């Protein structure tokens, strides 16, 4: 078995979640790496959309920002930002949205706004950006986040975007018709919502990771599904394509 890093496992597991016919709203960083890895391996026809307005983009390197020129140059078309949010996102044309955050709770609600009180924050984070409406407008949401006790918390300091709210049918009761977070992919495991309680529950553990490790890096008592699988290890090809993508990206960003 090839040697790999936990973050590589995370990106590869996220990439595998995407299908060839998906229409995907891509965020910068881990989501962008996962989506482009999927496009370069098993999902060559996947439609990638970045909120800068680029529809069906095929970058050769990962963009540093959400609107790098290459996204526009390789896109099928580029629309204005109001059109992006109104017709494409809020119009319900996007199947999968990717999100991450500084904090997540067990119902996959996310905080990207502040650590501490809003008026006197200990850390002022960038804020919601597209997330509040991505979370409710996309057909379903995949979340990618590395685990840790400071980020996987019992109670969020601020709810920037909703997941399954307070569990059960609380999301639907707000009038939201989309599925919300169906997968949470971490550097240790894959979580999915429990069918009844909607609590994010471990369904697959990455090779070599223990249940104790997952619990030690989570701020709530972790639930495990009745049948927990082992995530298949990255294949040589997945690792090769991902590493080439990152190497190309690093060269391009250093040069510019």
């Amino acid at each position, binding site marked *: 078995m090839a040697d790999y890093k936990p973050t590589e496992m995370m990106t590869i597991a996220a990439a595998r979640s995407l299908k060839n016919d998906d229409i995907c709203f891509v965020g910068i960083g881990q989501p962008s790496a996962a989506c482009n890895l999927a496009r370069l391996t098993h999902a060559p026809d996947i439609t990638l959309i970045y909120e800068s307005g680029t529809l069906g983009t095929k970058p050769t390197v990962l963009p540093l920002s959400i609107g790098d020129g290459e996204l526009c140059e390789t896109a099928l078309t580029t629309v204005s930002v109001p059109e992006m949010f*109104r017709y494409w996102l809020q119009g319900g044309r996007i199947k999968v949205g990717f999100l991450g955050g500084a904090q997540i709770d067990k119902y996959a609600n996310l905080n990207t706004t502040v650590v501490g009180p809003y008026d006197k924050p200990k850390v002022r984070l*960038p804020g919601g950006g597209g*997330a509040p*409406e991505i979370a409710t407008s996309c057909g379903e949401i995949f979340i990618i986040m590395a685990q840790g006790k400071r980020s996987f918390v019992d109670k969020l300091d601020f709810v920037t975007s*909703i997941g399954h709210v307070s569990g059960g049918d609380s999301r639907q009761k707000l*009038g*939201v018709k989309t599925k919300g977070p169906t997968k949470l992919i971490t550097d240790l495991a894959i979580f999915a919502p429990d069918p009844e309680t909607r609590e994010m529950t471990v369904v697959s553990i990455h090779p070599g990771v223990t249940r104790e490790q997952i619990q030690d890096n989570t701020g709530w008592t972790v639930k495990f599904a009745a049948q927990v699988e082992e995530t298949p290890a990255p294949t040589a090809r997945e690792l090769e394509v991902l590493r080439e993508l990152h190497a190309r990206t690093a060269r391009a960003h250093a040069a510019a």
Partner: protein
Amino acid sequence: MARITSLAEAIAANIHDGDTVALEGFTHLIPHAACHEIIRQGRKSLTLIRMTPDLVYDQMIGMGCVKKLVFSWGGNPGVGSLHRFRDAVEKQWPLPLELEEHSHAAMANAYEAGAAGQPCAIFRGYIGGDLPKVNPRIKHITCPFTGEQLAAIPAHRPDVAVIHAQRADKAGNVMIEGVLGVQKEAVLASKRSVVTVEEIVDELPARSLNAVVLPHWTVGAIAAVPGGAFPSYAQGYYPRNNSFYKQWDDIAKDRDSFHAWMKANVLDKGPEAFAQYAGTRHAAAE
């Protein structure tokens, strides 16, 4: 009506202390040269609107130009924090910063409503989150046809929009290509506008029948500032300088290194300093 002038005159005539100003450009075509000129002219107590505050607002906040920020995402894309923005919010340095915080969808809708002359933007948003609890300007409205609860926020109606574009012709018609952001909406929503361009040409070149052109009678002051979007980019002229965005993290982390950089690169310089970054025009796909 468009008037071709120098950047210094354009800023002096159009931006006053206390104004509400929107410098727009979504990653692409961010008006850095205009931002530097506003700082050099020492504007104070500005209310700044922008979806993604970026380096330009980090610089204006750190230099004490800003009273209030209306925004939806305040980070250095792909790099991390905007340190001057954080210092102002967390430690009130150099001044306290009032925040009016929205989501991207809300901001985009509010610019569009402003361009359309509507009093407010109505959209399906902010469901279940905490932003409406901390921003009293986020309200709700009931659809008179379906009864659905929708979010409503006031339209953006800035005193001044400031944008950068690839080119204008001598009559002052402005053409924008590539990632379009909300610049067209911001100019149409504002009372006045300042447009910097890579070049002023006799006639706009051959273009798509649907090219984005702001007619001269919708635009205020136009100034040619080649390279004026650097380290952001101008599609067809020069690429985004991603390595500078990474360097900014170190420059802005510390108050002294920030001030040293601003003195050397902004206060002691003029718009012509951007010329070194200007590329020559080439086809967009090259």
